[in-house]
C-alpha cells in the first residue's frame, strides 16, 4: 500500500476538448439503427449485423424495434405506395437527432422498378443523409456507407441554432 494517497483531486486525468466534438464523438460511435427492413436489402442488412461483417464493432448492432429508441433509419428495400405513409409516420416518431440511410437502389432512386407501385426514391418522402448503391449492396458496402455517415456526423455543429 502506498503512503501517499491519491485522491480524485490530485491524479484524475482530464479530457479537454471542444464540446461539439465530444457530442459528435458520442453520437457517432453509438448509432442505434431503427429497424426498417422491407425487402431483399433487409437480408443484406441482417447479414451486416451477423458475425462475418459484424456491425457491432462500430457500435451499431443494437437494432431497436421501436423508432422512438433509434437514431438511424436504414430504409432497406423498395417503398411501395401503401408503405409510404407508414415510413413517414415512423420517421416522425423518431427523436432528434436522427439520420436516414437509403440502402440500395430501390430506396435511393426506385431501382429496377419504375412503375405505378414504387416510390421513386425515398428522398421524395423524408430527408436522406447517405445513399448506398447496390442491388442489394454487399454488407461491406453498407458498412462503408455507415462509416461515411459517422464522418458526416463528426463534422456537424450540434450547438448551433437551427442546425
Amino acid at each position, binding site marked *: 500500500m502506498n503512503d501517499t494517497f491519491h485522491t480524485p483531486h490530485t491524479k484524475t486525468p482530464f479530457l479537454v476538448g471542444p464540446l461539439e466534438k465530444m457530442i459528435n464523438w458520442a453520437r457517432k460511435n453509438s448509432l442505434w439503427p431503427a429497424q426498417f427492413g422491407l425487402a431483399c436489402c433487409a437480408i443484406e442488412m441482417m447479414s451486416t449485423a451477423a458475425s462475418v461483417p459484424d456491425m457491432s464493432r462500430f457500435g451499431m448492432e443494437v437494432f431497436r424495434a421501436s423508432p422512438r429508441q433509434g437514431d438511424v433509419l436504414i430504409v432497406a428495400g423498395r417503398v411501395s*405506395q*401503401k408503405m409510404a405513409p407508414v415510413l413517414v409516420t415512423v420517421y416522425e416518431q423518431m427523436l432528434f437527432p436522427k439520420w436516414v440511410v437509403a440502402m440500395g437502389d430501390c430506396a435511393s432512386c*426506385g431501382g429496377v422498378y*419504375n*412503375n*405505378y*407501385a414504387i416510390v421513386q426514391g425515398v428522398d421524395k418522402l423524408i430527408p436522406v443523409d447517405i445513399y448506398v448503391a447496390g442491388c442489394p449492396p454487399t454488407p461491406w458496402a453498407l458498412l462503408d456507407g455507415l462509416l461515411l455517415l459517422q464522418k458526416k456526423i463528426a463534422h456537424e455543429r450540434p450547438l448551433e441554432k437551427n442546425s
Partner: protein
Amino acid sequence: MKTKAEIDFEKEWIKSALLEKIDFLGETTLHVKKEDLVRVLTHCKEEVEPSYDVLMDLTAVHYLMPKDLITIVYLLHNTTSLERLRITACFDPTEFVPSVVDLWEGAAWYEREVYDFFGVRFVNHPDLKRILMPDDWIGHPLRKDYPLTEESVEFKHNVTPKIPSEIIRVKWDQKYH
C-alpha cells in the same frame, strides 16, 4: 398405379358448355361458357373420380382486341392422380362473376386480387375489397388500358428526359398489334 381422372366429354350438358378444348405442351385447357362455369367446376370437384380437389391458382387475363374481355383462369389440381386442368371463361369487364368461395375457401384472396387488379366483381364473396393496392386507389392496374406510369429518367448535359420503356426496347407496337 394412379387412376386417371376421366371427364366424360360425351355428356350433353358438358358438350354444350364446352366452347373449346386445347391440348398444348401436355396441358389441357377447357374454355367454357360463362353461364356453365360454376357447374363445370363443381362437377370437377365433386363428381369426377378421383376429384380435382385443390384449386391451385385463380387469375385473369385482360384482352382488348378483338373485344374488351377479361378471361378468368382456374387451375385445378388432382391430388390422387396428379393431373392438372385449366378452365377458362370470358366475361365482360362490367359483369358480375360467380364466386367459388363455397367450393374452395382459399379462393377468397385470389378473387380479391382479381377484383383489385382487373375490376371484376364477384357475387357472394364474403369480403370483396382491395388487397394489394391502397384502399383508396382509383383504377385497376393490370388492365391493358392502365398506363405503367413510369417516371422519366433525367440525364446530364441537357439530354432530354426519357421514360425507360423508350430507352430499353424497340417500339414493336405497330408491328404486332
